[in-house]
């Protein structure tokens, strides 16, 4: 399994290979890619920062959460840091499961959780300026708050 922050370019093939097992009938892959516009501005590139040891620990926690909710056979996640150009992938998640519905739902859960709790930040450099984008502030008490969004996964 891969749970990694890296400054090298990332691609899906390695993550699919890491997640896939012979029991899997489906591998669902999420690609987050750098788009050329945000909030009405023309984006030139993004710069990602992370707290790597904690980010990797949180990715492992998310994988454990996924495994309690869906019958997945493999999970892999990799997030890139540093300067990323338009169109480059910033994050890739691969989730393998015997059946596609579980793989797709589990992959959706994993990326939503990653966006909510993994310490990674992006600075947008746009035509005319730059800004660290702020998502939602983290509430340390609400680690399990996502379960409501995925009622079918609640035991």
């Amino acid at each position, binding site marked *: 399994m891969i749970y990694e922050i890296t400054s090298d370019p990332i691609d899906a093939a390695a993550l699919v290979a890491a997640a896939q097992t012979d029991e899997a009938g489906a591998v669902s892959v999420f690609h987050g890619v750098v788009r050329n516009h945000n909030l009405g501005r023309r984006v030139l590139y993004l710069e990602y920062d992370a*707290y790597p040891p904690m980010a990797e620990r949180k990715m492992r926690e998310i994988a454990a959460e996924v495994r309690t909710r869906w019958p997945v056979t493999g999970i892999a996640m990799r997030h890139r840091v540093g300067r990323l150009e338009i169109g480059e992938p910033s994050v890739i998640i691969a989730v393998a499961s015997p059946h596609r519905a579980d793989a797709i739902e589990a992959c959706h859960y994993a990326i939503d959780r990653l966006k909510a709790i993994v310490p990674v930040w992006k600075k947008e450099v746009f035509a005319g300026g730059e800004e660290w984008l*702020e998502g939602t502030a983290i509430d340390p008490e609400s680690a399990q708050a996502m379960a409501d969004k995925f009622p079918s996964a609640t035991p």
Partner: protein
Amino acid sequence: MRTRVLLFAALREAAGTRELQLELPAGASVQRLKDEVAAAHPVLARLLVNAAVALNEEYVPGDRSIHDGDTVALIPPVSGGQHDL
């Protein structure tokens, strides 16, 4: 106790460094640490309002005590959670 505080993203840029050293009483709370950082570095005060704190790579509430040797990280809102995601 001498406490090491890691900074990221907007906090790192505003402070001009990835790491601060802070003198705190043993067992000081996480909230106390945030207050001390804001007092020592007013340029960070606004950003600290929404920052979470990680103690040894785990998110903790403001009333948690800090002990000698703990690694403290100030965590600005992470990059997800925006309306368009």
